[in-house]
C-alpha cells in the first residue's frame, strides 16, 4: 500500500481530507444529467451521416412523423443556426453537405427512446457520396474545401487566423532570434517527424443535455453534463440571438469530462427539438458509439521539428511545424493549435526559434480540448527529439536536458521572463531521474545480452510544462454567505466533475476562516441563476484563479464579521483576531464572540440587532496577460506555468511487443499541495490516461474516413490490468508568488509526456526510435521486424487516414 508521506504546515490547506462529494457517490445518491427526468420529457435520437462527406439529395421524414409517439422531427431544412466556440462553423443539423461520419442529418423527439429510435429508422435519405478530405496533406493541398464558406465564418478575430480559400481554420505563428544563422553556424542540425492519432476522452457518463424552450418567452432551461455553464450560456445566447440572462444552465454531478465537455455540444440540438415539440423538455443522450463518432475527440497531430545544437550540448535553434487534424469543425481545436506556438518548444532555453501551428479541417470526427490540450502532443514531438539529439551528441539525456532547461531569468518562447517563483523544471527532472535510479543508457552489448532472455528493460524520462490556455481576460468568482449556525455557504461558477475542486476550494476557505472543512457548505451543482460567474472549467486554472477568489471572499467575510463584532465588543475591529470559529480581543481573549453570534446580525440582550446576514464575494482575474502578436507570437499568455517530469522503467517482451510498465516516478512543481489525496488521484489518473495514449489508444479510419473503432471492444482504454507496478508521486513546492498559498494547477499535467517517457524508455530497451503512437504490441513487433532504427507511421502499417 502507498505510504502517504506528505506533511502540511497548515491546519487545513495540504491536509488529505476526503472529498466532499464522496459519500453521495458511494451510496448511489449522486444524480447526473443522465438521471434527470421531468414531467412531459421527450427523448431524442439522431440520424448520423453514413458518409464522411456527402451531398444530401433528399430527405423523407413523412413515415417518422406519422409514427405514434413522435413529437418532433427535424432536418437541416428546419434551422440555419450555427454554433462554435471560436469559429461559428458548425450547423446543428446538416444541410446540403455532411462533413463527417457523425454529422447529424435528422433528429427525432418522441415519448420514449425506443419510439425515437424506431422513427429514426423510418427516415429515408438519399445521399450523393463525395470524395472526403482524408488527412492533413490532402487538406493543405486545398483541392477540396471542407468549409466552402471559410472566408465568411464568424470567428474570434485577432487570436485565431483562418486562411482564405483553404482548409486552415487557424494558422498561429511565433518566432524569435535568428534561426537561419543558428542552423548554419551550429555543429549539428537534426530534423525529425513525429505523429499521433486522435484519441477519445471517454467520460463514463456520455454527453447528455436536456433543454426546455419556454414557448412563452425567450427563456431556455438547460440541464447538461458539461464543464462550463457560463460558456454554454454565452454561446447559446449568441447562436440563438437572445440575452445571456434568458439562458439558465443547470449542471448536476458530471460523470467525467477531461475537456470533452468543455464546450457546447448537444444543447443546441435539444433546444431546436424542444421548440419544435411545443416547449416540452427534450433529453438528448449520446450512446457510447456516438460518444466516439459524433462527439469530438483529441485531434491527431503531425509534428515536424528541426533542431540545431553545438557539440557541448547547447541547443541553438528550434523550428517546429505542428499540423493538427481537427476534423470537420474547429471547436476548441484552434485554441489547441494556439497553445503550441507559446509552449511548443518545451521548457527549454532556445534563443532562436519558430513555430507554425495549423489547425486543419478534414472530414474526420472533429476535435476539441483534451486534458492538457496540445501538450501531450507537442511534448511527444519535443521530448522524443531531445532524446534523439542526446543520442546523436553522445551526451547523457539527463545532462543534456539539465544544460538547456529554463532557469530564472530565461525567456519562454513568447518572451516571458521566468523568476524564482515560476517553479523549477530542473528540480522536477532531478527528482524523477534519481527515483528510477538512472545511471545512463544501456550499451548495445547489454541490449543484445538481455534480448536473448526475450524481455528487455529500459528507462526513460521526459519533461513537461503547461500554463492555463485561456483568454487574457479570464475570470472567476466566489460568493460566500454565513449560515445561522456559523457555517459558511460558498458558491462558485466552475464545475467539479471529479477533479476535487469543491473540496480543495473548501480547504482554502476553511484555512482562511479557521473553521472545520465540514463547516464549509459547497455544492457541485451549478445553476447560472444563482452561482457567480466562471469562464470555463478547463486548463487547470481553478485552484489558481478560484483559490485566489476564495481568499479574497474570506478576507471580506472576516472584515465584515469583525466590523459587527467590534461594535458588539465595544472595540476597534483592528483589535480583533479570529481562530477556531471565534472572534476575540487580541489583548483580552475573554472578550469574544462565536461566528454564529454575528452570522445573521448580532443581537444585544434587549433584542436590538446590528449588522445583518454576513455575505462576501471575491473575484479573480488573470493579471497582466496579453494576446500574442499574430506574426511573432510574443506576449504574455501564461498566468502560471506548472513544470514537471516523468521517469519510467519498462519491460518489453520482444516476441509479443507488449510493454509492461514497472515504475513511474512523476514530479510536479505545484508550489503548494492543497489536498495530498486529491493530487495523488490526479497523478494516478493522469498517468494512466497518458499510458492509454502511449501504448493502447487511437482512432482508426478506413479509406472512406469512417471511424473503424467506435466501441469499447475495438477502442480499448486501460483497465486495472494496465496499471504500473508502482507510481511514485513527487510534489515539488517552490511557491508561486501570486498563487493561493503558493499553489499552481496540476489537474491536467500528469497526462502530459507519459507517451514521450515511454517512447524514450523503448529506445533505451530496444535501441529503436519510434516516431509514432501508440506504442502498441503490433507497432513494436512490426518495428522490431522491420530492422530499422527509426520507425515512422508507414513502417507500422497505419491504416489509411490514421495520421
Amino acid at each position: 500500500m502507498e505510504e502517504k508521506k506528505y506533511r502540511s504546515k497548515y491546519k487545513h490547506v495540504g491536509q488529505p481530507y476526503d472529498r466532499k462529494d464522496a459519500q453521495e457517490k458511494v451510496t448511489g445518491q449522486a444524480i447526473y444529467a443522465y438521471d434527470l427526468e421531468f414531467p412531459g420529457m421527450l427523448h431524442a435520437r439522431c440520424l448520423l451521416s453514413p458518409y464522411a462527406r456527402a451531398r444530401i439529395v433528399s430527405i423523407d421524414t413523412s413515415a417518422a412523423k406519422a409514427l405514434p409517439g413522435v413529437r418532433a422531427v427535424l432536418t437541416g431544412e428546419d434551422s440555419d443556426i450555427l454554433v462554435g466556440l471560436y469559429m461559428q462553423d458548425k450547423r446543428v443539423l446538416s444541410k446540403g453537405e455532411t462533413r463527417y461520419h457523425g454529422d447529424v442529418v435528422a433528429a427525432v423527439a418522441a415519448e420514449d427512446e425506443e419510439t425515437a429510435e424506431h422513427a429514426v429508422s423510418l427516415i429515408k435519405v438519399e445521399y450523393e457520396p463525395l470524395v472526403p478530405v482524408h488527412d492533413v496533406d490532402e487538406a493543405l493541398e486545398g483541392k477540396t474545401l471542407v468549409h466552402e464558406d471559410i472566408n465568411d465564418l464568424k470567428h474570434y478575430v485577432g487570436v485565431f487566423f483562418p486562411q482564405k480559400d483553404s482548409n486552415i481554420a487557424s494558422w498561429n505563428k511565433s518566432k524569435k532570434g535568428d534561426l537561419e544563422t543558428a542552423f548554419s553556424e551550429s555543429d549539428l542540425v537534426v530534423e525529425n517527424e513525429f505523429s499521433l492519432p486522435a484519441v477519445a476522452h471517454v467520460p463514463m457518463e456520455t454527453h447528455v443535455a436536456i433543454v426546455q424552450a419556454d414557448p412563452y418567452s425567450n427563456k431556455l432551461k438547460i440541464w447538461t453534463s458539461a464543464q462550463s455553464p457560463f460558456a454554454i450560456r454565452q454561446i447559446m445566447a449568441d447562436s440563438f440571438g437572445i440575452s445571456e440572462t434568458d439562458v439558465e444552465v443547470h449542471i448536476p454531478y458530471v460523470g467525467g469530462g477531461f475537456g470533452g465537455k468543455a464546450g457546447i455540444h448537444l444543447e443546441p440540438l435539444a433546444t431546436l427539438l424542444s421548440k419544435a415539440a411545443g416547449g416540452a423538455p427534450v433529453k438528448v443522450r449520446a450512446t457510447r458509439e456516438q460518444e466516439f463518432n459524433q462527439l469530438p475527440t483529441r485531434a491527431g497531430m503531425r509534428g515536424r521539428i528541426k533542431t540545431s545544437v553545438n557539440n557541448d550540448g547547447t541547443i541553438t535553434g528550434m523550428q517546429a511545424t505542428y499540423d493538427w487534424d481537427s476534423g470537420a469543425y474547429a471547436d476548441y481545436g484552434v485554441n489547441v493549435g494556439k497553445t503550441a506556438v507559446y509552449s511548443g518548444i518545451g521548457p527549454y532555453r532556445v534563443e532562436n526559434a519558430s513555430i507554425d501551428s495549423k489547425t486543419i479541417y478534414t472530414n474526420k470526427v472533429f476535435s476539441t480540448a483534451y486534458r492538457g490540450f496540445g501538450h501531450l502532443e507537442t511534448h511527444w514531438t519535443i521530448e522524443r527529439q531531445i532524446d534523439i539529439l542526446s543520442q546523436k551528441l553522445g551526451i547523457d539525456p539527463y545532462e543534456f536536458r539539465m544544460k538547456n532547461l529554463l532557469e530564472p531569468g530565461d525567456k519562454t518562447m513568447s518572451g516571458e521572463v521566468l523568476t524564482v517563483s515560476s517553479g523549477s523544471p530542473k528540480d522536477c527532472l532531478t527528482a524523477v531521474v534519481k527515483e528510477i535510479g538512472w545511471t545512463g543508457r544501456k550499451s548495445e552489448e547489454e541490449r543484445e545480452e538481455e534480448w536473448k532472455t526475450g524481455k528487455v528493460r529500459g528507462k526513460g524520462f521526459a519533461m513537461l510544462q503547461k500554463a492555463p490556455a485561456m483568454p487574457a481576460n479570464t475570470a472567476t468568482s466566489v460568493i460566500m454567505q454565513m449560515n445561522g449556525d456559523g457555517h459558511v455557504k460558498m458558491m462558485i461558477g466552475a464545475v467539479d466533475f471529479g477533479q476535487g475542486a469543491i473540496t480543495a476550494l473548501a480547504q482554502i476557505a476553511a484555512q482562511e476562516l479557521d473553521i472545520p472543512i465540514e463547516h464549509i457548505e459547497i455544492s457541485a451543482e451549478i445553476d447560472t441563476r444563482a452561482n457567480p460567474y466562471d469562464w470555463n472549467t478547463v486548463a487547470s486554472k481553478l485552484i489558481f484563479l478560484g483559490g485566489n477568489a476564495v481568499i479574497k471572499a474570506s478576507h471580506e467575510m472576516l472584515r465584515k464579521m469583525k466590523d459587527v463584532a467590534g461594535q458588539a465588543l465595544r472595540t476597534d475591529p483592528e483589535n480583533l483576531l479570529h481562530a477556531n470559529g471565534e472572534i476575540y480581543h487580541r489583548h483580552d481573549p475573554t472578550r469574544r464572540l462565536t461566528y454564529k453570534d454575528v452570522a445573521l446580525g448580532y443581537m444585544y440582550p434587549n433584542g436590538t440587532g446590528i449588522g445583518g446576514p454576513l455575505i462576501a464575494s471575491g473575484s479573480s482575474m488573470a493579471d497582466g496577460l496579453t494576446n500574442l502578436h499574430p506574426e511573432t507570437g510574443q506576449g504574455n499568455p501564461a498566468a502560471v506555468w506548472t513544470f514537471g517530469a516523468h521517469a519510467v522503467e519498462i519491460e518489453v517482451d520482444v516476441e509479443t511487443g507488449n510493454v509492461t510498465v514497472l515504475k513511474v516516478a512523476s514530479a510536479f512543481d505545484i508550489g503548494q499541495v492543497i489536498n495530498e489525496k486529491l493530487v495523488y488521484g490526479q497523478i494516478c489518473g493522469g498517468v494512466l490516461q497518458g499510458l492509454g495514449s502511449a501504448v493502447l489508444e487511437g482512432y482508426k479510419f478506413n479509406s472512406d474516413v469512417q471511424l473503424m473503432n467506435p466501441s469499447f471492444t475495438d477502442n480499448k482504454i486501460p483497465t486495472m490490468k494496465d496499471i504500473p507496478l508502482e507510481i511514485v508521486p513527487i510534489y515539488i513546492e517552490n511557491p508561486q508568488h501570486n498563487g493561493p498559498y503558493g499553489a499552481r494547477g496540476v489537474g491536467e499535467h500528469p497526462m502530459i509526456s507519459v507517451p514521450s517517457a515511454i517512447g524514450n524508455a523503448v529506445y533505451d530497451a530496444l535501441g529503436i526510435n519510434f516516431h509514432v503512437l501508440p506504442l502498441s504490441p503490433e507497432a513494436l513487433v512490426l518495428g522490431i521486424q522491420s530492422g530499422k532504427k527509426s520507425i515512422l507511421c508507414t513502417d507500422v502499417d497505419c491504416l489509411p487516414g490514421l495520421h
Partner: protein
Amino acid sequence: MDKDCSMYIEHVESGKRKVTLSLTVNDRLVVRDVDPQMTLLHFLRDELKLFGTKEACGEGECGACTVIMNGKAVTSCIILAIEAEGAQITTVEGLAKDGKLSILQEEFVSQDALQCGFCTPGFLMSTRALLDSNADPSDEEIIETLSGNLCRCTGYIPILNAVKRTIERERKELGR
C-alpha cells in the same frame, strides 16, 4: 423460488405485452408488470427508480451497471428483467445498512477511490460480489475481477488500495 417460466403471467397492457415479475431487490420483495424485452438495468432505474445503477455503454463492456444477482456480479444492461424472476438482487443502494456506510464504501471514500463517481456503483458491486465469494483474494484475483469495470478518472490504483483495505478491515472487524 421456482424459476419455471410457465409461472410468468402474460397479459396485454395499453397495446404492449407484459409479464408479471417478482423478485427481491435490496431485501425488499417487488412485483411489477414489465415488458418482457426490458433489461434489468431499465427495470431497476425506470420501474424501481433506483438511479444508483448507471449505464455507460449498454453493451456489457464497461461494468458501470453491475449489480449482484443471486450472489454473482452481473452487468444489468445485458440481462433481461425477466431473467431475474425470483432472484435476490443487490444494488449500490443496498450496501449501507442501518444508516451506516459499509466498510467497502468507507474505504472507497477514505482511499479516494472515486472522482466523477459514475463508475463507482459498478466497482462497489463487482468488489462486493468478489469478497462475498472469496474473503481473501490475491491482488491478481482482484485485478482480474475488476478489470471488467472501466474507470477513466482514478487510474485504478486508489480503487485497488480501497479494496485491499476493505479485505483487511472486514477480516479484523467482521471476522471474515
